[in-house]
């Protein structure tokens, strides 16, 4: 799928909030996505986009950026999170950046894809460990926020709902007694 077209389609869906960038990887520190409440600089914006792409990378199927899921994440946090949620998101974003800096001596955006994936996997692993004191940290909260919205955006995207699963707008039927075996065969 042509990435530009995908993003343009996404932008159409998202309406006015997403101003189409000529290049999403504008590294000059200027934000390219127009948001109402969140104040992100270009660096931070790229971090969120890169994290979304790390969570849902382009493989032999489209990734977060291909599908405009990163834009959706911005939109959801900007529109649907309340002030408290947005404050937590911003604080978490900063802490997330600091943790990466401390660990790697460079920013998340400067990490290789493999390093980003390793870092994300670490957070996933740590969050599952009941003895881990850091699992409630702001950086971890930020990670799960981005992941939650990425997964929500992806699993409710046209791509996922038409090509990965079958969503029926008009089922036309209700079978109250349906054998599981038959379902599995479908």
């Amino acid at each position: 799928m042509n990435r530009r077209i995908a993003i343009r389609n996404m932008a159409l869906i998202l309406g006015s909030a997403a101003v189409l960038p000529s290049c999403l990887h504008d590294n000059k520190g200027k934000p390219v996505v127009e948001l109402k409440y969140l104040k992100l600089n270009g660096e931070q914006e790229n971090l969120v986009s890169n994290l979304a792409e790390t969570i849902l990378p382009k493989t032999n199927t489209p990734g977060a950026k291909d599908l405009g899921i990163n834009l959706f994440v911005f939109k959801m946090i900007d529109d649907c999170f309340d002030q408290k949620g947005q404050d937590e998101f911003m604080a978490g974003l900063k802490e997330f950046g600091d943790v990466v800096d401390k660990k790697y001596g460079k920013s998340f955006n400067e990490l290789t894809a493999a390093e980003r994936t390793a870092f994300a996997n670490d957070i996933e692993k740590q969050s599952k460990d009941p003895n881990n004191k850091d699992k409630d940290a702001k950086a971890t909260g930020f990670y799960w926020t981005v992941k939650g919205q990425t997964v929500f955006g992806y699993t409710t995207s046209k791509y996922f709902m038409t090509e990965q699963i079958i969503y029926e707008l008009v089922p036309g039927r209700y079978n109250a007694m349906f054998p599981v075996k038959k379902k599995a065969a479908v």
Partner: protein
Amino acid sequence: MANFNIDSKSERTFDAIVIGSGMSGGWAAKELGDKGLKTLVLERGRDVKHNKDYPTTNMYPWEFAHHGQVTAEIREANPIVNRCYAFGEDAMHFFVKDKEHPYVQEKPFDWIRGYQVGGKSLLWARQTQRWSDFDFDGPARDGFAVDWPIRYKDIAPWYSHIEKFAGISGNLDGIAELPDGEFLPAFPLNAVEQRFSKHVKQHYQNRHVISARCAHLSKPNQIHFDQGRAQCQKRTLCQRGCPFGGYFSANSSTIPWALKSGHVTLRPFSVVESIMYDEKLGKATGVRVIDTNTKEAIEYYADVIFLNAAALNSNLVLLNSTSSRFPNGLGNDSGTLGKYVAFHNYSAHINAEWDGDKEWTTDGRNPAGGGYIPRFRNVYKQETDFLRGYAAGFSAYRYRETSSDGVGEDLKKNLVNDSLSGWKVGSHMMGETIPKKSNYVALDKSQKDQWGIPLLKIAVEYDDNDAKMKKDYVEQMTEMFTSAGFTNIKASTDNRAPGLDIHEMGGVRMGNDPKTSMLDKWHRLHACQNVYVTDGASMTSTSCQNPSLTYMAFAARAVDHAVSESKK
């Protein structure tokens, strides 16, 4: 519509005026049109034409800007309506926003409204059960409110009349306390709902779990095709408006039917300020309307007036219709107008799991929502320390379970690698509340809306009877779930304000005695016999059935009476 000649009084004179175009007003309009009466239907909100004005009806989840979620701005601006389960990105345009139409909460009350042609009939949960004499006998037997002036035999033929046209699916269950009707085929219970139904039948006397009866065309008849409606396609996106007309709404059914009769005129953007009363004639002569766009006041005249503005707004119209004969509101000789308001108690739920029937699931979606448990408490005799009882919903379901663990290829695999969850079961209570003088609505003394109409002040609250009943629901359902072998049973209660049930009723109650009630057995004001009130305002008691079917039957019966009176 556009060419209303308001200069000529004869142009503004009709045989009948219907105030409101929703569930009951739509029926009044249809029946009046069918009987050839020149009828004006007034609606305070905008027109919503079937299909044409359902902007979201065919949208996929990804086509909504927030994939269905409500933005923080809208949530924060609308704390009241946002609490309604159906207020989502796909249907919010059919709900009144908090700031658009303010009201005064003397006590917390979530007033959920739909100001448009069709009213809340676009948004309702479509559950339809008849009352029986166990319900109509309630106040007289248990000594509260006043005796209903009607019984089941009075209303039964009108239930049939409504059911045939609206299309109600259900089984002939043969339960005395929940009379059977003119049903289309029911939506069947699934494996676990059936299991629970059998279990309850075997282990309890007079308790039943039946297919929920609902206003969906499971198998349409010619009369439904004649309305331009088609079979329900099991989308369960009803709150958006249904392109098939698969469920009953005024928009898909009664209103277009009424307009097709050629006798009915619909005027949206027309809020009724008051009903005009002529002391010499001793009757109402018409209504005073404010055009909500131009704010111009216009008077319309008719021989008979049907007030179907939805329960609390019908109270408001009467309270605001004062004259020297009726200084406290039209027809209010008894002083009961606005009082004895009641509702349904929906504040308890119970969930559990069933570790069996793993070989069964469901396919497609069930528009009926599952099962229904008719009231079993205090039916044949008083048996608890609280009055009346509750009905309950019951449903069982499995869902597609996926893990969202991991990142990258792992995550992508996890998201499509679904497995079927075990069976979950759930129930919610629908409790009768007792109408009391202290639960009332009144006009605010100082505050007015933008059309100069006083704001409605609402003072309605729960009482001890509700608390006891809620406790009993949790106990009884927990016991029934336990004995059925369900596990991990979790009851939850909430502190929702009254109103969120969207079953507010009363304030203009029926009764035999003009000294203690507002309406006679034909739904006419005792003291002003050409005004009929046939919506929720007329309810003497609430029982625990979903009320819309009863309002519709009331409206059709009252029109029949009004027309036969006019021929005398």
